[in-house]
């Protein structure tokens, strides 16, 4: 039961072989037993989860079930969930109980999914290792000495440890794809604008996108179908005809052109990751695809541009945390200015403060042109590189992360070392393109390697097709972490 995918569980639930209450209860028991090891969840509420499950069973009994009815899903603690705490991994929101549901939460509830709990994350989604959480780091189920990646590390760890069949996450610079790669699971960031950001606590508004994490491409398609859709409450939500992201899963890959950017296979890539990704490319060729060498000439500028734009937008978005209307307020202060300054110094962790300061600087008078405007121009160059690349290929492939999961504490000393984890992922956020990661093997110390696929705008169905066909021919996505007791 714990190894079953969402698709498999949905079939069992529909056939009444399993009830949502039984499934939810079993997962809650597993969480009770194992969450201490991974620290993947911040909030668990058995009463609320089982109430959701009972409602789902009623729908199933009436034959009114939808594809995700009765499926327990863990939510990154960045999505506002009415009645549950939503902490964003921060002391600033330690006491925040959202008075409303995020759009993504509403949609999944509408499908009859069960809220299984709120997942741990890097504070305010700023990080690549989930080590900056106020609630302590998350440990990688494949190797407890390793990070699970970040910022959706808790969501990824839950799915990898079989604490949940699926989870929601957010991706601003790679925060769904990279933890998926480091924990041997699948994760997808949609085209910017497909998933509403209403109720998804904002980090960088032009980059943030919510998306699914699960153990198969088919599952990602099912979740994406539920999570996407126009929302008038998000001014950047796109109003397009509804798509079935599972429609092309079964298409053979003959004739498909897969682009391999030379910049993704050069300096900075660890050899063990390179080997696993090259092997995946070879497998895709065996499945009938054609690989095409290409270049993304401005790839090296993605990280610098990202670390101007994201902090700039974060400095604006996080200015709302001032102790006035919700969240932490300092206990002692003099005047209003003092209250703001102490509240924010106390409520935010080191990395968040760093990024707010960078962002404030690059937006300040005299520096805006040299930094923010420059970065937005570089952004257009990066988007143009992709547009050019997609004239010669249908999907781009490469490593998700330059290395396998690193040890906890290994990159804490120098923020820039941490930022360089994002070299292959940030470009898709800057350009607004969809991207995903699926497991493709193992590297150093038996830690998972992820294959990244980047699609053209609205190319999710095609990316999922490539992933699904790869998963029909390989079984990396079905591997379980060592020592994991999956059937108890």
């Amino acid at each position, binding site marked *: 039961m714990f190894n079953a995918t969402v698709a498999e569980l949905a079939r069992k639930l529909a056939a009444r072989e399993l009830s949502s209450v039984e499934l939810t209860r079993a997962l809650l028991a597993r969480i009770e037993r194992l969450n201490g090891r991974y620290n993947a969840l911040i909030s668990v509420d058995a009463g609320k989860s089982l109430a959701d499950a009972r409602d789902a069973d009623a729908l199933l009994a009436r034959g009114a079930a939808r594809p995700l009815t009765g499926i327990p899903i863990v939510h990154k603690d960045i999505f506002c969930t009415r009645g549950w705490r939503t902490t964003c991994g921060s002391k600033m929101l330690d006491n925040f109980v959202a008075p409303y549901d995020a759009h993504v939460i509403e949609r999944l509830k509408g499908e009859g999914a069960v809220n299984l709990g709120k997942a741990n994350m890097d504070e305010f989604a700023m990080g690549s290792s989930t080590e900056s959480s106020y609630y302590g780091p998350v440990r990688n189920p494949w190797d407890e000495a390793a990070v699970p990646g970040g910022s959706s590390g808790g969501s990824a760890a839950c799915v990898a440890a079989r604490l949940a069949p699926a989870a929601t996450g957010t991706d601003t610079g790679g925060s769904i794809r990279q933890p998926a790669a480091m924990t041997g699971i699948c994760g997808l960031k949609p085209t910017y604008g497909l998933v509403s950001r209403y109720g998804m606590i904002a980090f960088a508004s032009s980059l943030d996108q919510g998306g699914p994490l699960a153990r198969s491409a088919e599952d990602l398609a099912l979740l994406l179908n539920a999570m996407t859709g126009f929302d008038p409450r998000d001014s950047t939500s796109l109003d397009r005809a509804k798509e079935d992201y599972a429609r092309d899963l079964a298409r053979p890959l003959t004739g498909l052109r897969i682009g391999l950017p030379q910049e993704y296979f050069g300096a900075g890539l660890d050899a063990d990751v390179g080997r696993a990704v090259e092997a995946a490319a070879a497998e895709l060729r065996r499945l009938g695809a054609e690989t095409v060498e290409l270049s993304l000439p401005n790839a090296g*500028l993605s990280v610098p541009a990202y670390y*101007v734009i994201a902090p700039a937008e974060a400095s604006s978005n996080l200015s709302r945390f001032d102790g006035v209307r919700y969240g932490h307020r300092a206990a002692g202060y003099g005047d209003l200015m003092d209250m703001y300054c102490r509240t924010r110094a106390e409520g935010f962790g080191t990395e968040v403060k*760093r990024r707010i300061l960078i962002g404030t600087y690059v937006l300040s008078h005299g520096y805006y042109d040299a930094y923010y405007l420059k970065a*937005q121009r570089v952004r257009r160059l990066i988007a143009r590189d992709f547009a050019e690349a997609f004239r010669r290929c249908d999907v781009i492939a490469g490593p998700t992360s330059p290395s396998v999961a690193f040890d906890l504490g290994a990159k804490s000393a120098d*923020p820039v070392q941490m930022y360089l984890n994002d070299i292959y992922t940030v470009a898709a956020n800057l350009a607004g393109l969809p991207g995903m990661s699926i497991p493709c093997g193992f590297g150093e110390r038996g830690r998972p390697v992820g294959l990244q696929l980047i699609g053209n705008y609205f190319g999710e169905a095609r990316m999922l097709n490539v992933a699904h066909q790869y998963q029909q021919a390989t079984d990396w996505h079905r591997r379980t972490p060592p020592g994991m007791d999956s059937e108890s």
Partner: protein
Amino acid sequence: MPLSLDDVRRIAQLARIAVEPSEAERVLADLDRIFALIGEMQAVDTEGVEPMSHAQDVTLRLRDDAVTEPDRRELLQSIAPSVERGLYLVPKVIE
């Protein structure tokens, strides 16, 4: 371009985040490292390139200027640190 402690103090003030003198040196060192990374962006010529803030060429949606939100003041203020008679309470501003 290296920053100074004065820059750190100025930015912290703008960002409304108290940075203790004992922290300022470490913050400065971290920011300098990050600015060295960001500086790499200056290597490319972007003359004539339009800044890009959004992937799709979309315009901001407009709607009728009509009241659509219900009054949820009680619900939304129920989570505030300090509220009285429908007003958020804050310490006074001392000029």
